[in-house]
């Protein structure tokens, strides 16, 4: 199945809103760190419901905020969730970004980057599209150190890239970024039941759930375009 087919189904199921709710737990911290100045142009890669764009407009007074997604249904839904005239959506693929050189000040991506068919090339594309000195904030829950995520590939038809922390740093550098930061951003909002309630439907032990959310959380890699 293609990205379009897979994620059109998700959008039709309403999974865009479910993801927004769960991802917000860590994405809000990531977005807060971005050095976006009032009036600057931001890009959200694999925007889903588009919540990141709405947040950057509200909290940082971003100028124009564009969301790219490979799923027309995701983009259609996202467009309905806002009537902010400075927020716009584009259907497109990570590997061939339809944006001019240096046209974006800062880019963000949550739980989407690893779906790129050629992630090294996607990073090169980002380094081309983001102006020198602009940032790419790349946030993922699916990565090598998060052993609890390894099985996710089984439930999805699109091939996923599972880099570790240092593979992310190396790939950023190879593509033309300076690496400015890498961090595990904990999910402090998800409720973790008391020990007596384990095993739950999803978690064998409380320790595993604590490790997944509070310790590993979301892997953030921040690149600055050279």
């Amino acid at each position: 199945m293609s990205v379009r087919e897979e994620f059109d189904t998700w959008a039709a199921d309403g999974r865009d809103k479910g993801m927004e709710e769960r991802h917000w737990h860590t994405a809000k911290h990531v977005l807060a760190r971005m050095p976006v100045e009032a009036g600057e142009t931001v890009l959200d890669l694999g925007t889903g419901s588009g919540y990141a764009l709405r947040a950057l407009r509200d909290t940082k007074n971003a100028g124009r905020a564009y969301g790219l997604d490979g799923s027309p249904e995701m983009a259609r839904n996202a467009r309905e969730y806002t009537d902010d005239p400075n927020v716009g959506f584009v259907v497109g693929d990570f590997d061939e970004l339809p944006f001019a050189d240096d046209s974006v000040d800062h880019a963000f991506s949550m739980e989407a980057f690893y779906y790129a068919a050629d992630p090294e090339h996607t990073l090169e594309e980002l380094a081309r599209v983001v102006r020198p000195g602009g940032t790419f904030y790349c946030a993922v829950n699916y990565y090598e150190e998060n052993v609890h995520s390894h099985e996710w590939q089984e439930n999805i038809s699109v091939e996923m890239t599972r880099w570790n922390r240092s593979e992310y740093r190396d790939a950023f550098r190879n593509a033309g970024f300076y690496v400015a930061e890498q961090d595990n951003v904990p999910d402090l909002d998800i409720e973790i039941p008391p020990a007596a309630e384990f095993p739950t439907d999803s978690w064998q032990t409380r320790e595993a759930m604590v490790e997944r959310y509070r310790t590993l959380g979301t892997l953030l890699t921040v690149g600055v375009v050279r």
Partner: protein
Amino acid sequence: MKESLMDILCDPLDKSDLELEVDERDDDEILEGRLIGTETGEVYPIEDGIPNLLPPDMRDD
């Protein structure tokens, strides 16, 4: 899409400029139309206000 989006959009295939053809617009948005690659001649649809700039082999018209 707002017309100002044209400032930053380009043809995904070769990053050359796009030409805009409008079929339908409301007060401040283009709702239906197409973007045409000035070099590639490729036609990208605008549907329900959203431009579809997937490379042609990934698009499903």
